[in-house]
């Protein structure tokens, strides 16, 4: 099993078949094509998206359906083609796809999740994209907590 040195986790052993390819990279990180999904019992339900080529690059993500139970994926025909899917997945929460929102920690405010542009992974093929739909009703800075009240997601 190959080892990966990461800033966040130190040394990580992983199975090559767990690497997810992002053929188009992510906006702002166009050259980052390979990521590992890492879950830790200690930090459940957080999912880490660790770059294979940049030790310091690790996104903190959450399943979109955890933030918004009624979350609806919007994928373009090009998105589906990149993912190797021949039709829209029935649900953002699987079983065909894993859908994750990248979390941003802000100073002075609650962490926010990017529900506008979800990371969508066809787990069977280990291929992923960051979908950026033109007409989604979701925010790119959805606050995860405001006091004790839940925030409506759309």
């Amino acid at each position: 099993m190959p080892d990966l040195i990461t800033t966040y986790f130190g040394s990580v052993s992983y199975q090559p078949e767990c690497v997810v390819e992002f053929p188009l990279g992510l906006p702002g990180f166009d050259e980052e094509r390979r990521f590992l999904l890492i879950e830790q019992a200690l930090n459940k339900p957080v999912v880490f998206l660790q770059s294979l080529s940049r030790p310091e690059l690790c996104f903190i993500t959450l399943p979109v359906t955890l933030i918004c139970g009624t979350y609806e994926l919007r994928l373009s025909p090009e998105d589906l083609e990149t993912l190797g899917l021949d039709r829209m997945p029935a649900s953002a929460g699987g079983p065909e796809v894993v859908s994750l929102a990248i979390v941003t920690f802000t100073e002075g405010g609650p962490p926010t999740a990017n529900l506008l542009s979800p990371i969508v992974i066809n787990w069977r093929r280990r291929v992923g994209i960051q979908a950026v739909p033109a007409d989604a009703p979701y925010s790119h800075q959805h606050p995860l907590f405001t006091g004790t009240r839940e925030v409506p997601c759309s």
Partner: protein
Amino acid sequence: MLVIRRRPGQSVLIGEEIEIEIIEAGPARVKLGITAPKQILVLRKEIRITRQQNLNAAQGVSQEAVRKLAEKLRPAAASAERQQTDSRQESGGA
């Protein structure tokens, strides 16, 4: 902001080298044709927003902050999982 009314087939010019043509106008959206030099980047605004959001998110965060986030979300995650199991059992029983 400059506001101009145009019909399908009409264009707007920006500088000497950029042309934006209205190809089609529907009730909910319009189709634009953009002609610009190669070195000019043409992007949907959502892509730029996503790019900036990704750059902010990649700033790095302390293990402590992540652990706190996970702790706050764990009850919601547990109840979501329970609901999933429940609905699976329901559909299994039907």
